[in-house]
């Protein structure tokens, strides 16, 4: 009846009721609004984190999905390959952004550092102030090196330096560092070694025809030893002729000091990844991790690689181990398709730092043509180019299982397609867990806000019981009273949504833009299960991230308002008047 007369009356009443207790209404409004304002950026942050994790996994190296020969993931055999031509096919599937071919091998990278040093002969090492190491007299090629040089070239006792050029026979060809002595701020490197050995190094040798120079069948030219057939020979009886220079007549001993160049060899086993730069940068973010120099360029000329050094990028830790900088030359041998190793010189184009120890220390990237080059890895199948892996990146991470099934249908049986969740199941479950966590946090925030709302509504109902008694006694139906309370709640909720959204979106835009910088807390970067996560934690905006908390707020507040509404509807006028005078 009242309803029929003025449809807006109930809204007007609800609105007025709200503003009869301004302070309480405003506080409730803000409690709800702040709840919402927190939920929106929280969801943004949590979604940002799982996106960062997924990005970290897929864009570091993995890609959204990978295609291999079916035994490759298990065995990593160099001949378990797939055709390079497959790329053009894969490229045409819906949702595929880019495909990157990769060839893997293993090898040893080595760099040599030239150290130019003065050598000075001593009769014995006793007078030197050795601060580190021990001078063992048994080794005739033992030396002591000054502290500054040792620090500069990272020399430790036990390290070996090879003389360059190699001196004539009988002199030491490599020296072993026995001790490090305290230098007096020398502006040059200084090495002390036994006087006699220094003399041998600087000895001038008259031209002696070297029987080794000829490539002939030297084996037949060896003379038989006198006591041939002596089978009962222990180790001790094998004479070490190196340590006993017998034929010194041809040597003119030189001075006991001078300059010489020593070569320090650093070597490290590495995994070799041959990639196609133009395609690789669309799949992986590795090029962003370059801290000095540049990423691989796409230059490759067919006949050059053995004359001009080809490009390589290496990790920061590896660069430290090898003691090299951008522009230095390193040599690397890699296991080839014919099983044996072949080597090639490379010029360091860039140094990357991903924060992942495994990558920064043990992985190098070279141009994929090195992988197909028969003078190097030579990965070809009947002269056709083949690769070990195709990494596929998609426009949308979420599509990967769908695209994987699509690709799977068309492929040969000996190939497999795996999504990153299958390759890194531990990471996948972590990402899934973090999504559950997001919803849990959201629910907790809104439930707290909801109880605040319930409290307010209940209080205002209790206060106004007398009024409801009046309303009831003049013929208002319980349904009307309940609706009135619910409409008051709706008004509150709408106000809260408006304020909460504006506040929340304001916070979120700041988090999207600036993010939370965790660098101070995690100075060495943040890696988790072999995935690098950006230390600046940024939120992302999604429509679901905005609407889910709004829907949840409306739902929660209506649910909690039901009880006060029912309470008001069930008021009996007589009792109301008796109790509340």
């Amino acid at each position, binding site marked *: 009846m009242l309803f029929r007369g003025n449809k807006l009356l109930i809204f007007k009443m609800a609105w007025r009721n709200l503003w009869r207790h301004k302070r309480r209404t405003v506080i409730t409004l803000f409690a709800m609004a702040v709840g919402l304002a927190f939920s929106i950026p929280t969801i943004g942050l949590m979604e940002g984190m799982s996106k960062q994790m997924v990005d970290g996994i897929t864009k570091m190296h993995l890609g959204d999905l990978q295609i291999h020969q079916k035994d490759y993931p298990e065995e990593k055999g160099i001949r378990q390959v797939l055709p390079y031509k497959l790329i053009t096919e894969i490229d045409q599937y819906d949702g595929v952004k880019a495909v990157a071919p990769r060839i893997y091998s293993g090898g040893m990278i080595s760099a040599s550092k030239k150290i130019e040093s003065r050598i000075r002969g001593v009769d014995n090492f006793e007078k030197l102030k050795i601060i580190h190491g021990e001078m063992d007299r048994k080794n005739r090629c033992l030396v002591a090196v000054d502290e500054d040089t040792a620090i500069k070239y990272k020399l430790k006792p036990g390290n070996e330096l090879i003389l360059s050029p190699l001196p004539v026979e009988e002199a030491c060809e490599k020296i072993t560092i026995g001790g490090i002595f305290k230098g007096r701020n020398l502006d040059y490197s200084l090495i002390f070694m036994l006087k006699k050995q220094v003399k041998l190094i600087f000895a001038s040798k008259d031209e002696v025809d070297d029987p080794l120079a000829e490539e002939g069948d030297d*084996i037949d030219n060896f003379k038989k030893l006198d006591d041939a057939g002596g089978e009962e020979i222990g180790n001790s009886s094998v004479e070490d002729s190196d340590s006993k220079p017998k034929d010194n007549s041809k040597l003119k001993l030189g001075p006991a000091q001078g300059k010489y160049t020593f070569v320090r060899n650093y*070597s490290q086993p590495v995994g070799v990844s041959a990639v196609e730069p133009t395609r690789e940068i669309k799949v992986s973010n590795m090029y962003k991790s370059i801290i000095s120099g540049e990423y691989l360029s796409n230059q490759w000329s067919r006949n050059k690689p*053995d004359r001009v050094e080809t490009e390589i990028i290496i990790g920061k830790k590896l660069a430290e181990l090898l003691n090299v900088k951008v522009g230095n030359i390193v*040599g690397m041998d890699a296991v080839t398709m014919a099983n044996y190793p072949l080597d090639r010189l490379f010029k360091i184009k860039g140094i990357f730092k991903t924060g992942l120890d495994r990558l920064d220390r043990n992985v190098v990237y070279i141009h994929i043509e090195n992988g197909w080059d028969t003078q190097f890895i030579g990965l070809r199948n009947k002269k056709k180019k083949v690769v070990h892996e195709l990494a596929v990146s998609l426009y949308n991470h979420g599509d990967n299982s769908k695209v994987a099934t699509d690709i799977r249908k068309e492929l040969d049986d000996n190939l497999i397609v795996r999504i990153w969740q299958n390759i890194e199941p531990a990471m996948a479950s972590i990402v899934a867990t973090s999504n559950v966590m997001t919803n849990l946090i959201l629910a907790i925030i809104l439930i707290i806000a909801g109880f605040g709302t319930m409290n307010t509504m209940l209080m205002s109902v209790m206060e106004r019981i007398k009024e409801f008694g009046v309303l009831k006694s003049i013929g208002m139906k319980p349904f009307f009273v309940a609706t009135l309370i619910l409409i008051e709640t709706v008004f509150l909720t709408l106000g809260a949504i408006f304020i909460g959204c504006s506040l929340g979106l304001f916070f979120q835009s700041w988090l999207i833009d600036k993010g939370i910088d965790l660098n101070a807390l995690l100075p060495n970067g943040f890696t988790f299960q072999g995935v690098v996560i950006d230390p600046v934690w940024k939120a992302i905006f999604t429509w679901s991230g905005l609407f889910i908390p709004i829907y949840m707020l409306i739902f929660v507040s209506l649910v909690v308002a039901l009880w006060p509404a029912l309470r008001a509807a069930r008021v009996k006028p007589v009792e109301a008047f008796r109790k509340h005078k």
Partner: protein
Amino acid sequence: MFKLKYVYPIIFIFIYFVPQVEAKKWGKCSWNTKKIVDKADRIMFAKTTAGKMVMKVKKSDYSSTIKMKFYSKGRDKMSVKIYSPSRLKGMSTLKVNNKVWYYMPRTDRIVKVNSSMMSSSWMGSHVTNDDLVKETQLQKHYTCHSSKSDKTFHVVTLKPKPSAPVVWGKIVMKIRKQDNIPVSSKYYSEKNKLERTMKFSDIREIDGRKIPAKMRLSPAGKNEYTEIYYKKIRFNVSIPGRYFTIRGLKR
């Protein structure tokens, strides 16, 4: 006190002499077995050896053949130089004591093999760098567990001594009776699982010695092998010391 003069020698006799009598057995086998095993183990051993060999590596579906010259002196010095195929020509390996160096001629580099590379394969074969370095002497590092012999062969099972620096848990050797030439060796892991088999064949007389000219090493459970065939060997020749130096690697 003068009596102690006589007592001490008696004690010494007990300490030194008695165990020697017992040690005339080698583990659970006779002293003679030890001699047989040692002879088979050192069938190729000489003061120095020099020769040419062909190494054939077969892996699942690909194979390579490498020809090389080798020089060795005692147990601790060895140098190998490849002369074919042309791609690898000049590549050499030097082993002195327990260190290994490679020389890569194409890039003129000398690479010292560090400890983490020791377990990787040598020239793509089934032999690891560790196998090159670790010179195990069967009679020194192993004791006999059981031995059987029939008309033509001795079959000896060896187990490592507790402190021996070896990787195998058991070795079963089959040795030809007539001339103590090994026929096969089976290497088992510590869990008693067959890991690799070495077969010796093509017994012929080279440079005054009867030796198996062909050795085939195959890992268990795979259709793969590394075969070494000696084309030429000369025993006990005077090899200049420079062959076993870094200078010699680069030549």
